[in-house]
């Protein structure tokens, strides 16, 4: 006789719940006060006026002329450079992050499903996801140097801890030409946003661990089949996002003396040495000002026989203003970034919820309303990206005669990048500061064994800000203003490059930049749901 799956119990009720109590309270963070937003908006309008008057952007300049190398730092500079020239420092950091990553996967798969009690969700979504974007501001693409799934993939495929792997451990195929662009990374980023906001992986330690495992499998597959690190260059949504943002920040891996690189015949940075891997993303770092695809892996720092490569500080946004090559796929990645970051905020509005409910009823959706969410996401992205397309069409009309659409689009898309970056940080800053209080307990009990869900009192305590609220508001409003300021500078430089000299031809893009910044600012004024 087959066992029934379940049987009814004539037990007394374990507890009783009145319908009124059958509604969970969702905790929200207060938004930026209106007065702050108004002041920030005024400042942004003031910042954008010079570009509307057709002021010329800065003339193109090479990073090398204005570079401050790490080696020039008094006392610690040379010591740090020496430490980075040897593999041990980065290797130790890679081992540490990989160990933490494996612990996170174990916690997600075997630990408590309560998101705020499990290391997988707290570390991934409260600290890492928030922290890496902030880290770009200070350290460029440094995350990639210690990326755990890339490290695990390299160890598995190359079977070496740090030395150059034997060539036969990978098939070393060239990436298919149709994949050698930013479309795979953009699709992955949209997919990740869908998983985060639609499916809700942020509230599931199990799903978070599966996502981590999927990254390892994808990175390993790519490394085993293709040469160098095509996954980092074309597919990884994290790497490409950090790469795009890092074109606006000052910290980067650069040559110390560009003339030494100009005379170099052997190009160890590109080809590697017997011991050191070649540049994973095909860069000759000494002869380019474009760091967008640099993963800060440090291979060139270690392989250069003249010890001429180091981390350094360059002029802010110089790369985005003058050097980033405007490619069609890359430009769409940037427009996608701005659309996706603003969409993040959009999903936290009550109007979004109402729209979801009405639309779900209309199309007969139920459960997690995933069809409705997907439809809403697609519409929102199309709306924001479509507005940018219209902006470029208008620019085409107002600009010099017979200006092609693509060069305009490719160049002006770079101007939207700081808006995405600024809103990304401002939004995440609030999550990190407001939700990290007390979550350190997960590092003591990563699996959350024997823990209970947060009580209302604990939730309120969790939302205690470690800094004065006014300081947070200043930072958020300041970031949005700074983002617009950088965007306008990039617009000026790019407009000059493509011959948009008349102020009127810059009006559509300036209006778009102000519109998106205004929308992002308004989104920040709205109360925000706690991530977990």
């Amino acid at each position, binding site marked *: 006789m087959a066992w029934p799956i379940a*049987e009814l119990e004539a037990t007394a009720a374990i507890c009783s719940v009145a319908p009124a109590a059958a509604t969970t309270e969702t905790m929200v963070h207060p938004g930026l006060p209106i007065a702050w937003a108004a002041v920030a908006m005024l400042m942004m309008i003031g910042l954008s006026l010079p570009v509307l008057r057709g002021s010329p952007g800065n003339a193109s300049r090479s990073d090398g002329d204005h570079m401050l190398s790490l080696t020039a730092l008094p006392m610690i500079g040379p010591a740090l450079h020496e430490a980075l020239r040897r593999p041990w420092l980065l290797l130790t950091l890679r081992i540490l992050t990989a160990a933490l990553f494996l612990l996170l996967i174990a916690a997600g798969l075997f630990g408590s499903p309560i998101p705020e009690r499990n290391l997988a969700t707290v570390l991934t979504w409260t600290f890492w996801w928030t922290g890496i974007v902030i880290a770009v501001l200070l350290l460029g693409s440094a995350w990639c140097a210690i990326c755990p799934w890339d490290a695990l993939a390299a160890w598995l495929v190359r079977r070496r801890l740090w030395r150059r792997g034997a060539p036969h451990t990978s098939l070393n195929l060239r990436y298919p030409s149709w994949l050698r662009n930013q479309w795979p990374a953009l699709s992955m980023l949209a997919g990740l946003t869908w998983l985060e906001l639609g499916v809700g992986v942020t509230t599931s330690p199990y799903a978070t661990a599966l996502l981590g495992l999927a990254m390892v499998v994808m990175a390993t597959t790519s490394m085993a089949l293709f040469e160098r690190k095509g996954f980092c260059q074309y597919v990884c949504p994290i790497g490409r996002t950090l790469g795009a943002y890092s074109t606006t920040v000052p910290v980067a891996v650069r040559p110390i003396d560009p003339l030494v690189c100009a005379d170099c015949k052997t190009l160890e940075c590109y080809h590697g040495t017997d011991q050191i891997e070649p540049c994973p993303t095909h860069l000759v770092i000494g002869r380019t000002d474009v760091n967008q695809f640099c993963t800060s892996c440090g291979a060139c720092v270690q392989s250069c026989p003249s010890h001429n490569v180091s981390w350094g500080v360059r002029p802010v946004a110089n790369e985005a203003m003058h050097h980033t090559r405007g490619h069609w796929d890359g430009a769409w990645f940037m427009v996608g970034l701005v659309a996706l970051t603003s969409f993040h905020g959009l999903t936290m509005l009550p109007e979004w919820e109402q729209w979801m409910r009405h639309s779900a009823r209309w199309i007969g959706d139920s459960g997690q*309303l995933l069809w409705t969410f997907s439809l809403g996401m697609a519409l929102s992205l199309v709306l924001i990206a479509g507005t940018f397309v219209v902006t470029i069409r208008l620019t085409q009309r107002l600009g010099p005669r017979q200006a092609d659409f693509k060069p305009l689009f490719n160049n002006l898309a770079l101007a939207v990048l700081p808006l995405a970056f600024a809103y990304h940080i401002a939004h995440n800053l609030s999550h990190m500061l407001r939700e990290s209080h007390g979550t350190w307990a997960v590092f003591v009990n990563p699996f959350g064994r024997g823990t209970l869900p947060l009580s209302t*009192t604990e939730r309120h305590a969790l939302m205690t800000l470690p800094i004065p609220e006014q300081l947070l508001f200043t930072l958020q409003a300041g970031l949005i203003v700074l983002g617009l300021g950088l965007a306008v500078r990039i617009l000026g430089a790019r407009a000059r490059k493509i011959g948009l000299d008349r102020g009127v031809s810059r009006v559509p893009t300036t209006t778009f930049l102000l519109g998106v910044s205004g929308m992002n600012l308004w989104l920040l004024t709205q109360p925000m749901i706690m991530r977990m």
Partner: protein
Amino acid sequence: MTIPRLLMLTLLLIMVPTAQAHHVLGRPAYSLNEDSNTPPAMQIETQVGAYFVTFMAYPAFPKPGEPGRVNFYASRIDSGVSFSGPVTFTVRDDGLLIDSAPETLGQQMPDDGVYRQNYQFHQAGDYLVRAQFESDGEPYTVDFPLRIGDPAPIGPIGLAVALVALLLLSVNLSQRKRLARLKTQRHNAGRA
């Protein structure tokens, strides 16, 4: 557009009333009622057709062999009026690659607006509890996931390890063959 008009527009834009708290539909949430000694509960809220429904599972982490209960509550989205007809609860195994027939747990009438259905599962696993009712001649079906016992983590890890091992093995074999072929070619070329 003049600057004062732009400013007016901006101020209008940012003076929209602020948002209220809202819920994430369809996602399990764990809650603790501090005012009573009840164990933590797992709760899912969603909507289906004309109804907004809430499902609560007690305890939040049910174990095989232990009694548990689901509470179900449905109210009309337009008027807020609670549903009061009979609701039938069924359950089926929702594990990966398992296609089991649903079993009836019972049919319940509301008690103070809430439908309560007790259960006791014998085996750990992923289950799907289904609540079915009829309103205005329309049949309604609402599914809720229910996990009994601990998840089976070996599945995803095993899958990931198997995939990676298979891939690395195939690459290794293919490269060895290629190297052996090259060696033979060089050897033959040397003799010729």
